[in-house]
């Protein structure tokens, strides 16, 4: 039995509008040295007619567009990974299935475990392919998350503090198969660490709550614990030597820096200057897209992977170590190999150029969106979207390849291509 498996095609979609995070911090009166520690530049802000479905479809469409009809017909499972679901019963995968014109002979479902959802979805797809129950089958895994900062009042803004500039939106689509041109998974090489903790959560349809200190502690505990489990399953692993690059779940860059420092101190007692150089070298590239879209939750570790593939010097295959953490909590350290072929394939998606095309919101426009008047709340029965809510953000010309929300009729969301 072949154990060749991984990501065949991959794309990141960072939405239609962005906000300069430095401007936001200035506006909120947040302390600048602290802001620098976030290692953030921009964040994606979801427009009212962008929801987890449009993000997911817009990420996945270029992925399936590159397939032949026969290949598309082999997509036998669509897993949506999200903590931004729009219905308790009906999965976002059903909408993806419709707007991507996939075969009716297909498993559709959605999974949740905070920011760990994407790694969970990927591993389910990987195991589906490895099981050979349907030889040659492909699985489409799509992470899609938007932050929920509508319903703003002065107290809420106070409470968000540094989570407001770091919370973003984005989707990652990954076609998983036995021809992993973009990222070949090291099958069987993984480690988990999980325990129950109330660090951050989404207790209501449009609310987020959390304790930043507790979340950071759980993240650090998991990072060490998951890597420890990985070493117990894989012979001869060395955190410093085995991985040319690392990609961690990135709520903001500063947190990744803290986790990396923790591991390097714990495992090797490395001096600070050497730790800093290793961070720049092995984790710097992974921040390329995260610092432009903000925390994308379930997709964050794969946004990091895309950044590494697109920006690292790559003249031969190299091994990457990935760490995913989701509040609540569950985590995983796993690994795989990228090659110059990965760069070529992922490069064809033009992720960076697409991010450049986002409309840059003014603070006034952002504040208007935050007021939540235009937001389609969870459980909305009927709605008609105002596509001119931020006139400059609506594209004057389109190619019919960008999906937006148009109406909600009897809870059913209707989308249009623009």
């Amino acid at each position, binding site marked *: 039995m072949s154990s060749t498996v991984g990501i065949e095609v991959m794309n990141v979609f960072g939405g239609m509008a962005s906000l300069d995070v430095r401007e936001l911090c200035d506006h909120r009166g947040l302390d600048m040295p602290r802001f620098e520690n976030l290692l953030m530049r921009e964040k994606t802000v979801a427009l009212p007619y962008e929801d987890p479905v449009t993000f997911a479809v817009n990420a996945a469409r270029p992925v399936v567009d590159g397939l032949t009809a026969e290949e598309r017909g082999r997509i036998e499972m669509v897993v949506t990974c999200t903590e931004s679901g729009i219905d308790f019963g009906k999965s976002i995968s059903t909408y993806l299935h419709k707007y991507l014109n996939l075969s009716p002979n297909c498993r559709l479902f959605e999974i949740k475990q905070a920011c760990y959802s994407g790694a969970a979805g990927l591993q389910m797809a990987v195991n589906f392919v490895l099981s050979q129950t349907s030889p040659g089958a492909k699985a489409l895994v799509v992470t899609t998350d938007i932050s929920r900062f509508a319903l703003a009042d002065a107290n809420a803004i106070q409470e968000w503090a540094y989570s407001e500039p770091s919370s973003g939106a984005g989707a990652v689509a990954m076609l998983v198969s036995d021809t992993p041109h973009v990222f070949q998974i090291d099958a069987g090489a993984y480690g988990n660490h999980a325990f129950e903790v109330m660090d951050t959560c989404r207790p209501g349809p449009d609310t987020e709550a959390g304790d930043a200190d507790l979340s950071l502690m759980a993240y650090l505990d998991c990072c060490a614990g998951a890597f420890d489990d990985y070493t117990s399953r894989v012979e001869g692993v060395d955190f410093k030597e085995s991985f040319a690059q690392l990609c961690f779940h990135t709520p903001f860059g500063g947190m990744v820096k*803290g986790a990396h420092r923790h591991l390097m101190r714990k495992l090797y007692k490395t001096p600070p200057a050497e730790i800093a150089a290793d961070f720049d070298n092995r984790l710097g590239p992974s921040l390329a897209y995260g610092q432009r879209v903000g925390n994308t939750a379930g997709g964050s570790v794969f946004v990091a992977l895309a950044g590494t593939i697109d920006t690292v010097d790559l003249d031969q295959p190299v091994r990457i170590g990935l760490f995913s953490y989701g509040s609540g909590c569950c985590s995983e350290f796993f690994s795989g190999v990228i090659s110059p072929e990965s760069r070529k394939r992922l490069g064809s998606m033009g992720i960076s150029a697409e991010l450049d095309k986002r409309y840059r919101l003014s603070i006034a426009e952002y504040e208007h969106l935050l007021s939540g008047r235009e937001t389609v709340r969870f459980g909305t029965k009927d709605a008609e979207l105002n596509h001119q809510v931020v006139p400059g953000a609506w594209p004057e010309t389109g190619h019919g390849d960008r999906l937006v929300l148009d109406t909600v009729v009897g809870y059913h969301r209707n989308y249009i291509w623009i």
Partner: protein
Amino acid sequence: MDSNQIAEIIIAEIRETVPELAGQPITAQDSMAELGVDSIERSEVILAAMEKLGLKIPMVQLHGARNIGGLAELLLAKSAG
């Protein structure tokens, strides 16, 4: 070792981690957040104190202290347990 000595260890680690606080008095009644120690730095102070005490427990067990003295009490309880 009592909690006062542990508080001294914590304060020494704060001074090491956040050199900008030099000259500012720090007591067990202060909270790290109010002193301007950010969340990443707070975790580093706690990790360093754990290392000094030879304490190997999940960090989440040290969550919830209101100030440096409270953290020292927690560390003492975990060291004894």
